């Protein structure tokens, strides 16, 4: 499965964790789709189903004080980063107990504790932020990495170009992760990029990079680990192109006129969870009972998060104008 063919040596806890992370993201989002249908979650909801290996593999390679900048399709990243499912679910509901106090919703998950800088709903809007976070680290002599996730559609935006150039020019510790799921809404890669080999762009800024099978969680983790090591050693950016696929519609409004069911079905044959689970079972690293436990735990965690979100109070309307500016008390405390 991995480029070299064989899996690197994984121990059992590691394998269990990879499966657990991917599965709880999957089940969480399946439930979110239901909750959307039930009117509990509103606005836009962009599911990551099919792409879980990317967030899980990359984020495992990060240290606790590294930073993450993500997109509107970020539930998986938030969960993999260790933000609690309760505050995430409450955020999806728009409750004040949400991680962004309910103000952001699905597209704007933020978490200071884990240095999770959103949840950005402007395509490519997060890239310059990642450059700046890395610049701050460099200027303050901190050996931290900022991982920046975005889709292949974002690569056409001017912000992509400006950000790659700045990161390379100033030698900043940014890990660019292009999650290439081959579609930007309904626009296929070949209708959006004259150069479909996106890594070629990175090369044109003299940024090192690699292409990874984004359906293979171990391959992703290996590549990300290598990338992060390279960044920490050289202080310069690194570019990962993770080839993956979105199994669901772009958002809950998308009738998917632009691709065949056959194409989707074909992609599903390489479901990252099945691939890894089958491999783990075959290799004897995982057992059927493990899968059951993980599924049961995930289900329980999700039920718990829903109960939490349901019970959480709405923010009072009188607080409408909160958090436009930093209150003076917070300023004094800084």
């Amino acid at each position, binding site marked *: 499965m991995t480029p070299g063919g064989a899996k690197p040596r994984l121990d059992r806890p590691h394998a269990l964790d990879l499966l657990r992370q991917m599965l709880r993201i999957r089940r969480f989002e399946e439930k979110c789709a239901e909750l959307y249908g039930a009117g509990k979650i*509103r606005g836009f909801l962009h599911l990551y189903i099919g792409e879980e290996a990317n967030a899980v593999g990359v984020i495992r390679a990060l240290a606790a004080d590294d930073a993450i900048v993500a997109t509107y399709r970020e539930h998986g990243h938030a969960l993999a980063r260790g933000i609690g499912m309760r505050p995430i679910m409450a955020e999806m509901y728009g409750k004040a107990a949400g991680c962004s106090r309910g103000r*952001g919703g699905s597209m704007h998950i933020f978490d200071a504790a884990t240095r999770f800088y959103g949840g950005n709903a402007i395509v490519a809007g997060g890239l310059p932020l990642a450059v700046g976070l890395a610049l701050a680290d460099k200027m303050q002599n901190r050996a931290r990495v900022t991982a920046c996730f975005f889709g292949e*559609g974002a690569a056409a935006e001017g912000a992509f170009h400006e950000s790659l150039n700045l990161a390379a020019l100033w030698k900043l510790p940014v890990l660019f992760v292009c999650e290439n799921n081959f579609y930007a809404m309904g626009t296929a890669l070949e209708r959006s990029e004259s150069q479909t080999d996106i890594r070629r762009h990175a090369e044109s800024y003299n940024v090192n990079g690699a292409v990874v099978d984004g359906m293979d969680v171990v391959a992703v983790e290996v590549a990300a680990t290598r990338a992060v090591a390279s960044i920490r050693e050289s202080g310069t950016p690194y570019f990962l192109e993770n080839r993956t696929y979105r199994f669901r519609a772009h958002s809950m409004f998308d009738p998917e006129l632009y691709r065949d069911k056959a194409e989707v079905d074909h992609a599903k044959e390489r479901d990252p969870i099945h691939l890894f689970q089958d491999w783990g079972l075959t290799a004897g690293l995982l057992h059927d009972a493990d899968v059951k436990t993980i599924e049961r735990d995930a289900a329980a965690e999700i039920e718990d998060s829903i109960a939490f979100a349901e019970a959480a109070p709405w923010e009072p309307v009188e607080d409408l104008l909160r958090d436009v500016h930093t209150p003076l008390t917070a300023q004094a405390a800084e």
Partner: protein
Amino acid sequence: MKTTYREAVRKALHEALTRDGRAFLMGEDVGRYGGTYACSKGLLAEFGPDRVRDTPLAEGGFVGAGIGAALGGMRPIVEIMTVNFSLLALDQIVNNAATIRHMSGGQFSVPLVIRMATGAGRQLAAQHSHSLECWYAHIPGIRVVAPATIEDARGMLWTALQDPDPVIIFEHATLYNLEGDLADDAGAVAIDRAAVRRPGRDVTLIAYSANVHKAMEAAEALEADGISAEVIDLRSLRPLDDETILNSIRRTHRAVVVDEAWRTGSLAAEVSARIMDGAFYELDAPVARVCSAEVPIPYPRHLEEAATPQPGTIAAAAKILVTGHG
């Protein structure tokens, strides 16, 4: 014929592509996807990928390309998916589309139409709920319109396409599902005048786009309280139709301006200032504004509703003007 606002937009696009060989539609997901709001569904199949042109995510680039294509003799209809992303194209609009005619001493015109969805109301939170029409209405060299009705959604595009200079059409995202009747022979409409959507005697409610409907609701509620409210649909945001506004004020002597933009620097401020300019001595009370609260639009429905104009807040503002108390 029963139809929807969305279908009216689609018909208008269909007419444009059919009647004018120089017209083409370009934007993100206008083709294979059928348009984010399904306004161009089916057009790709009928007119082909050249004239229903999917673009990469590159708002500045493809809006600029639209300007260039207009200079080159085409009649581009550029769809920016929403006003939120139009910020990435604002430089091209301000510094090229709006100025090339002037900078070239009148040698070149830019017959470009830009359509975009705008507004809040769908729980899309802080980055996806802007109402920046007032910014566009500030720019000399462009015309800005906002169809509030199915007739206008159907008819404004063709007229805009005849304009030799850039025209921006704002479609409020909550309007696409609006249902109503449309005459079978409905077609182009004038785009330079405001419309009195409901006559009244005691107060004038001035709104545009989706808020016209909220103002109409407010007018009905006021009616029940014995207050007769006139409702003006601005339709054209640049230029503003001062005459229709001032004529109304001269009759009602009171006005509430409704605008989904943040209050400070809203188009409502301009309308208020113009009423000051043109009808100060006619006013029985200061012009009131019902705008959005000065907060990025929050995700939860109850907060989003509290942040934006609602029929209730419009009616309440009007009632205070007329009766001196709420």
